């Protein structure tokens, strides 16, 4: 019987991918099925053409050869720019409003039902409104993604400020902190620790917001490429777009992980607590 050796985990993970791709390729030998599910080889060919500036001569895998257009960079750049802008703007807004509402109980009580309503609303439906307000350029996408990021950060900051240890707070006051110093040395660090713990979610949502915004109406971006391909029933390009987006999301996530490890070194990690 086949029993996976845990030492060869990577090999087994790769094997799963290969098996899935082979099965996919096999099923797509039927032209009718291929129309719906695409062909892995052609998907890869499409990615090649997107990223590489040189083509490929006709060969066994690509009987028609591959053009090397290297034309995805402007689209990818636009999508990533939207993601970055949405992330920065959404985080700043969430931080400011979260701190404000957490530290002003009256304002918090007044705005509470509205905050809840806005958060409950399916915010993707705002996309048409943002398109009307900000046009079809990047800002309508940024606005949509900001609404997604904002609430994640907002609720985390709110929670972070509310859950500041009363002892730490009392201690800071006894050490002579005034209101401004309390904000800077107690509330803000505590809130940012909650923001960082939600960083993975908020970066992911910024990306989702940007792509969905593009998909709903745009002239540039990876979402636009997918929309175009779908309009011509070019399922291979749709899949290629999905692969590129997934890779980007994974790369962003890894980046966030590194930033987080660097900034959160004061937080105990498992196996790290009993150093002394």
């Amino acid at each position, binding site marked *: 019987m086949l029993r996976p050796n845990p030492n060869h985990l990577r090999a087994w993970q790769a094997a799963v991918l290969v098996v899935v791709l082979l099965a996919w390729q096999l099923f797509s030998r039927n032209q009718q099925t291929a129309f719906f599910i695409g062909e892995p080889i052609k998907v890869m060919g499409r990615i090649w053409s997107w990223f590489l500036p040189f083509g490929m001569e006709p060969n066994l895998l690509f009987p028609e050869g591959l053009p090397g257009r290297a034309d995805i960079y402007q689209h990818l750049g636009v999508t990533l720019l939207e993601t970055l802008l949405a992330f920065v703007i959404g985080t700043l807004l969430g931080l400011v409003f979260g701190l404000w509402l957490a530290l002003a109980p009256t304002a918090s009580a007044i705005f509470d039902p509205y905050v809840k309503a806005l958060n409950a609303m399916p915010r993707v439906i705002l996309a048409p409104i943002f398109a009307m307000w900000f046009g079809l350029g990047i800002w309508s996408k940024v606005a949509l993604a900001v609404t997604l990021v904002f609430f994640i950060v907002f609720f985390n900051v709110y929670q972070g400020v509310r859950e500041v240890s009363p002892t*730490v707070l*009392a*201690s*800071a*006051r006894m*050490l002579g902190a005034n209101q401004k110093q309390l904000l800077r040395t107690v509330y803000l660090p505590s809130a940012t*620790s909650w923001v960082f713990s939600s960083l993975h979610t908020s970066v992911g949502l910024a990306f989702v917001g940007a792509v969905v915004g593009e998909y709903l109406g745009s002239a540039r971006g990876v979402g636009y490429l997918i929309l175009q391909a779908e309009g011509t029933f070019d399922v291979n390009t749709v899949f290629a777009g999905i692969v590129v987006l997934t890779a980007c999301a994974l790369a962003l996530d890894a980046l966030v992980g590194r930033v987080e490890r660097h900034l959160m070194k*004061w937080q105990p990690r498992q196996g790290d607590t009993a150093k002394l």
Partner: protein
Amino acid sequence: MNAAVPPHALEFDAIDVTFRSRDGQDHAYTAVAATTLHVAAGEFVSVVGPTGCGKSTLLNVAAGLLPATAGEVRVFGQRLQGINRRAGYMFQSDALMPWRSAIANVMVGLQYRRLPDAEARAQAQAWLDRVGLGGFGDRYPHQLSGGMRKRTALAQTLALDPDIILMDEPFSALDIQTRQLMENEVLALWAARRKAVLFITHDLDEAIAMSDRVVVLSAGPGTHPIGEFAIDLPRPRDVAEVRSQPRFVELHTQIWSVLRDEVLKGYAQQLGKAA
């Protein structure tokens, strides 16, 4: 007050503290009632009492973190309003900022006073050296043991050179050896600088071994002092050795006879509450 007599470092004058529950006045709880107490400059006073009798409430009033319902707190003769700026507070639970390294925690009070960073760092390092943590400044609180965190908190409090030090069972979470070590160190630091100390504990041995005076509080509600004992043991003391002195045993017996009834009363109340 006679001008020639210097005022006490800390005075409680007929202090009442009543907590109102949110659903009206029917559940008002009087934690502290008619408490009058004073700590002279440079005096080490311990307050003992049964669990849950409002010892910490009293300390929070002295710190200015909690306003008294009635009565007046005076600090060096001045009526206390707001935070007690001349007092340092060592809390029972962890009060270090987890996002700051040990030295940054010791520095923070000095930074609040707008000392330049370099100077604050130098002073904080000196205090870390004094509490035996000179080489651990860059550790974060979660990387330190419970005893080391207490030392850091001690350095944090003392770095501001407060005239009054309030301590709320600061060593109750430590094991007995670490605890005795810390008690001796606190006594040594205190002997060098002679600040007024108000030390809250439920451990009578600790109270007698460290203090000039022990105040016994009654069981709550309406806690008030019911006995005061001057501790005439010679200084400097070693908290472990002093316990075997006949005078220590004698004082312990005297104070315990007053405290025991209150402890039993407090315990009975807690059982009643739980039932």
